[in-house]
């Protein structure tokens, strides 16, 4: 019985070849657009998230509230040794380390670049910082205690020839804020635009260079002991700091965050943009759906006599409904299949062109099986949804009137 339905529907679609094709084109353009945009959007999200991927799950960062900008911007009550000691004493904390971040200019090969320098603390705190950023060198060696006048650079300085005309390598001399430093190492590539472009200097050097007081920090990194409950430790540190800084809950002038928190806030902004773009793209699906509705209404009018005959030889309302419903659903799903393929191809094509032009992985297509399945289901739903009203009209036709209708 069911296969008979399909045969019937296919015949009627085939007999109106142009119209069926045009209706499907409407759907597949919409589905292709949505699949391609979601694929590219997910690719972008993946690329952004991977920037933070090297950060461990056993770390927390403490910053004081301030203005817009990198940690430490516009902070009135900076973090000090008091906060550092308090965080160190919280049970479950393996170690803490403070650091300062400063902007500055770096001169090499008679070219200048502007960026950030981060300090490296001495002793055990150095190990903590190295653990937090998962630091390892690609060339030379890492900074050690007493390495005054020496710096370690992020990988971009070594890799990117355009920055200074030639790569900076271990052993080169660079000028930072007009003072000469020796490069002793290049960090491994982290894939994070911040770390890969940062200059690492021993803390005493950086404080001398910019004249920062000795006990002020822009950011405090915390490493927790293995397998500890990081959220509980986060809450205890918050509680201790509230006591020290004398603020009430909800009025904190500092924040304690896990890397996951940071990624989350990035993601939520991105999601807002994505949703907006998807909504605009789905407008074309809506328009395609209206096309299906139109085609189906026309089909019902054209086949009014057929419906009358079918009914007069005993077809039930539900049979008529199913026939038309299947027809519109089929239009939707076939359109969806072509659309998903086209969307897949164009997303990959865009990503390829993007990589050629920009040379970065920021534009990549991330098309999951769920997305394809979702798109197919959705196109079937669109087809049947917009076919429902015409099908209902067809099923409710009065057989006598339908038969007497002139063509």
């Amino acid at each position, binding site marked *: 019985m069911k296969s008979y339905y399909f045969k019937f529907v296919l015949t009627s679609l085939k007999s109106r070849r*142009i*119209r069926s094709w*045009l*209706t499907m*084109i*409407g759907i597949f*353009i*919409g589905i292709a*657009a949505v699949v391609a*945009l979601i694929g590219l959007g997910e690719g972008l999200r993946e690329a952004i998230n991977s920037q933070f991927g090297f950060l461990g799950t056993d770390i927390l960062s403490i910053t004081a*509230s*301030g*203005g*817009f*900008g*990198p940690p*430490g*911007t*516009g902070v*009135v*009550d900076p973090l000090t040794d008091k906060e550092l000691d308090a965080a160190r004493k919280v049970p479950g904390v393996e170690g803490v380390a403070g650091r300062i971040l*400063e*902007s*500055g*200019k770096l*001169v090499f090969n*008679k*070219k*200048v*670049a*502007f960026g950030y320098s981060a300090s490296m603390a001495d002793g055990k705190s150095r190990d903590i910082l190295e653990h937090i950023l998962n630091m390892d060198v690609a060339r030379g060696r890492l900074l050690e205690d007493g390495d005054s006048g020496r710096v370690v650079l992020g990988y971009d300085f070594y890799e990117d020839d355009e920055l200074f005309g030639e790569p900076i390598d271990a052993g080169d001399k660079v000028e930072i*804020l007009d003072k000469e430093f020796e490069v002793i190492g290049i960090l491994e590539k982290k894939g994070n635009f911040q770390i890969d472009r940062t200059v690492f200097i021993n803390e005493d050097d950086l404080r001398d260079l*910019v004249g920062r007081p000795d006990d002020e920090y822009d950011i405090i990194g915390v490493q927790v002991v293995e397998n500890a409950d990081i959220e509980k430790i986060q809450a205890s540190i918050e509680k201790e700091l509230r006591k020290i800084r004398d603020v009430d809950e909800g*009025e904190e*002038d500092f924040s304690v965050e896990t890397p996951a928190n940071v990624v989350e806030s990035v993601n939520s902004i991105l999601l807002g943009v994505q949703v907006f*773009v998807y909504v*605009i*793209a789905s*407008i*074309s699906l*809506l*328009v*395609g759906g*209206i*096309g299906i*509705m*139109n*085609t189906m*209404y*026309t089909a019902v009018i054209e086949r009014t006599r057929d419906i009358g005959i079918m009914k007069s030889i005993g077809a039930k309302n539900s049979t008529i409904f199913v026939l038309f419903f299947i027809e519109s659903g089929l239009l939707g799903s076939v359109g969806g299949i072509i659309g998903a393929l086209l969307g897949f191809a164009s997303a990959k094509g865009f990503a390829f062109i993007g990589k050629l032009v920009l040379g970065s992985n920021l534009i990549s297509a991330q098309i999951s099986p769920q997305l394809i399945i979702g798109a197919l289901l959705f196109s079937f739903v669109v087809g049947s949804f917009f076919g429902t009203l015409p099908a209902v009209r067809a099923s409710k036709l009065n057989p006598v009137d339908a038969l007497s209708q002139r*063509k």
Partner: protein
Amino acid sequence: MIKDILKYSLSNLWNRKLRSFLTMLSILIGITAIFALISFGQGLNSWIDGFAQEMGTDKVFIMPGGGLSNAPGTSNIKFNEEDLDFIRKIKGVDEATAMMAISGKVGYKDYRDVYPFIIGLSTESNEMRLIEEMFGGIGIMEGRGLKKGDVLKATAGYSYTVPNRLFKRELSIGSKVAINDVEVEIVGFYEEVGSPTDDAQLYLSQEGFEEIFDIEEFEYIYMRVAPGEDPSMIADRIKEKFRKYKGQKEGEEDFTVQTFEDILETFTSILLVLNGVLVIIALISVVVAAVNIMNTMYTSILERTKEIGVMKSIGARNEFILLVFVTESGVLGFLGGLIGVILGAGFAKIGGMAASAFGLTMIQPDFPCWLIAGCLIFAFLVGSLSGLIPAIQASKLNPVDALRYE
């Protein structure tokens, strides 16, 4: 004849109300989206233009480092009084002033502290005129501006006059706020700029800024070039002279000189690209609508095959049949466009109101005539072009076959 054709088209469309309505619906949705999106882009553009006009194109900025990449107050490269004097003496510079900037903590009563940018302005009378120009027509709305001798007095951005935006209660003239725990009296409020960051700023005299933050150096230097001089030429001259003065080699400058026009151009072009991408995505739906129109026209030609046969047999020429059907689809497109423009304007207004509620009065839709006309013509063209292929087919029908069509 055109009148007859129009009448005939309209009555045909009327006879197939449901189909005409659905076809129109499909094109009007896309036009609505495009109209609304472009009107926002346009509004933003005219906001910037208005600002530029007030400010004049004769302004040049000197910024630390590589340009506007640093947040104010975070740079380790600053300018001092001697730098400013040097700049002032460069030929072609009419007047120069410097600004201090940093983000600070602002407290009011027991409400939660906020962290806006605090700006230190000169109160020398000749520099104040330049500063006024720099503000691009945004003047004091209530109270007074800063004047010579003001130390612990501040003027505030518009947002401070609105409750619940920064503090739970609005400030008024004479209110005392604490900037980095130093008490400061508010003496005036600025008009609304329309961007939340600018409207949250507080302005101090440079003396007051020094007293509170203990910073004597400047973040930015602004200047007006002398009348008749080319700003970008002066900018190049300043770059060269200032570099030599600071003893830096070419390419190693730790400052950036830009004309106001350059900055604006960068900003505007980014906005236009973003807006353009959205419009292109919305255009996809118009393509689908065009397919729908084509479909409707094929159907309607099929239904009227006999009619076409009759028209031809009584002497209608091919071109006439073509015109009849192209007009019909063009009318569909035009009507869809008309409703789309009206709906789009409505949506844009609602969106603009929503943006104002968040203090973003810079994001307001603008409906220039060319946009309205453009959307209507575009919708008409989409309609008539999508009807073209079906209409050509109709015009080429053999009258004998067409008459016999059942």
